């Protein structure tokens, strides 16, 4: 019924157990919610301490466990969800999800980019876990749909909490810097406004308004700014072809690059390159 739920569980540990929680990596997305106790876990080579209400998020392929395999006293619940990893590294949810394709992509992207595996005081997760468990045990009419809804809900809340934790909604200059960095790191990606807004943790309308008043540009025009600036730097180096520059900086094609570049600067990229490399 739920092939995408790899594991669902709750554990109450009354005494310290040795070799009970060793490091492992899996292909699923793993989410743990602490009910009581205190746990020192290692995620992706870093040590974190979790208290009641906290949530651990382990991405596919990341190592997770307790360093010496010790499981401390306390209780926690968890879910392992299977998600698809595309060739370009993006992660998407499966067909079971009711999320739209672009929202699903955005969630995958935020999980990858805002890589902070420890969410502090995120009790909504515990409530959702409980609800999923009782739906599965009860098997009342409509339970399949409700379980899948709850998983969607979990991922939405998780992503929102994550962006709030990274961008607490006070420091727009800093938040904008983070966004700008994310764009630069992946300039070849066909960014949408929805994705950018989700990274900052705002709805698209408010996001566009804030970016416009802060930067003077719409989000997409600001992105074009970065693209052309990076392209100029590459054009001034002789060792990379104009087509490669176009694709590396996020243009669909060298034609698209050439048109955009000429509209702004008056030069075709190849002309521009010739002028600036004349003495070499």
């Amino acid at each position: 019924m739920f092939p995408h739920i790899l594991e669902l569980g709750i554990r109450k540990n009354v005494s310290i157990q040795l070799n009970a929680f060793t490091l492992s990596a899996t292909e699923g997305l793993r989410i743990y919610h602490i009910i009581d106790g205190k746990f020192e876990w290692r995620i992706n080579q870093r040590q974190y301490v979790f208290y009641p209400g906290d949530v651990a998020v382990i991405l596919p392929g990341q190592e997770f466990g307790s360093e010496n395999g010790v499981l401390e006293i306390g209780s926690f619940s968890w879910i392992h969800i299977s998600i698809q990893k595309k060739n370009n590294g993006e992660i998407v949810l499966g067909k079971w999800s009711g999320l739209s394709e672009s929202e699903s992509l955005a969630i995958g992207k935020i999980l990858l980019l805002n890589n902070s595996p420890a969410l502090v005081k995120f009790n909504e997760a515990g409530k959702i876990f409980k609800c999923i468990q009782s739906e599965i045990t009860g098997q009342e009419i409509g339970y399949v749909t409700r379980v899948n809804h709850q998983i969607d809900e979990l991922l939405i809340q998780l992503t929102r909490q994550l962006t709030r934790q990274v961008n607490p909604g006070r420091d727009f200059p800093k938040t904008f810097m983070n966004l700008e960095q994310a764009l630069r790191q992946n300039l070849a990606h066909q960014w949408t406004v929805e994705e950018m807004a989700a990274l900052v943790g705002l709805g698209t309308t408010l996001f566009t308004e804030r970016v416009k008043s802060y930067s003077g540009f719409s989000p997409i025009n600001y992105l074009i700014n970065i693209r052309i600036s990076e392209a100029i730097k590459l054009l001034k180096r002789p060792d990379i072809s104009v087509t490669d520059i176009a694709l590396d900086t996020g243009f669909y094609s060298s034609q698209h690059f050439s048109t955009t570049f000429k509209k702004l600067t008056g030069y075709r990229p190849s002309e521009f390159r010739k002028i600036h490399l004349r003495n070499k």
Partner: protein
Amino acid sequence: MECIITIELGTNAVRVFAFDMNGHVIGSLKGYYPTFHTEPDYSEQDPEQIFITMLYVLKNLLNERIHPKKYKVACICFSAAMHSVLAVDKNGNPLGNAITWADNRAKKEAQELNNSPLGDTIYTATGTPIHPMSPLLKICWIKNSDKERFRLTSKFISIKTYIIQQLTGEYFTDYSIASATGLLNIHKVQWEPDALAYAGITADRLAEPAPVFTTSGKLKKAYQNSLGLSPDTKIIIGSSDGCMATLGDGVKGEGKASITIEDSGAVRVMGDKVLQDKQRRFFNYLLTEDCYVSGGPTNNGGIIFEWFTRQFGFFRDPFDIEHSMQELMAEAAKVPVGSDGLLFLPYLLGERAPIWNANARGMYFGLNIKHERNHFVRATIEGILYEIYSIGKTLEEHRDIKSISINGSFGTIPFCTQMLADIFNKPVRLRRNFHSVSYGAYLISATAMGIYKSLDDAARTVELPDVYRPQKQNHTVYAAYFNIFERLSTQLSDAFEAIVNLQQLKA
């Protein structure tokens, strides 16, 4: 109909204004560009992104406001933040990012020169304080720590020189920007041999200094086409943002001072004589061969109140700092003048004038059990403005200041303007919805085009109709507290150094 375009290459953004020939604003647009801090003391900007952002904004303004109304652009005049350094190779291509005024990597170089007798000679000759902001010391840093870049560099130029060179192909640096490099002798208006020798360069590795009215060649054909401008559009090299703001407020002549408070701030006077200060607290920059803009800069302006708001404001909507700041200002207004004895030193970013102590740090002083949250809000604003006053007061040791003009987003908030008038005990003037830097650029353009006979004539036409008058009883209270503020800022230097040592240990 003709019009004048001004382009300000500021710290965080480019601002483009269009004026008609009478100085009325036709339209304006801004475009942000980022500052990169790849290392703790580094502050860099990408010259290509600045160029592209400038082009983009200029093009939008032309297409939206100028071309549809058939204005003919007579000239484009530039202003820019001071102290930037960009190394370019023999093809004129940047070797890495531009280093901005806020960059502190040349700390060691600054300390060395400050402790050497040459420091006095160079400061007196060039008018630029010996501080890591100075391009002289940044070039020294490149020479000492980035030898490959130093070797490949054909010219060390400013961001503005680069932008204008991209547009016209010619290298010029205006007198104002040149006089803020620590390399120009401001008395003789030529490169200072001692400073050049100290930087390890010859004059041909700098752009040629030229008067602010200079026209830099012709706009390249490609840009004429993409912008829709005629080949006879004059590109005027212009001045620095500081000099432009002072001119734009009409501060030429006796008895006037101009205060700018944006993120950072400055107090400036203008005159035909250099301010000689034994303690080297002031800058002296050139507007023209016989006109000096002198004063002192602070690091800790509106940015400190923004910091306070982010920590303690209410933020009903995400990122709505403006509204949160307004709410805090309203709270501050309910607290008595002087915050019932709570004092704030605003040195969160270290300080330049007048104490020139990079290790200075912030402090709330005089707390007692009756102080409430609101007292902190008001004390923070008062502290920021006491610091402005401390610069003004040291300037008054040299010049008689009768009236003050204020510009910049923080200083022109009515609550702050009134407080400044009270603290200074002088009338403070301003014009609402006015951008002093751009207006200064308009005045230079209009003078270059013969609309005014001289900058003096141009400056005389500036009207600042809004006046905030000092309230005597408030001044008495502020003056008493300022006395303690001043003592704290100088007497704590040992403790500042000790705490900074510990803070840096932890970092």
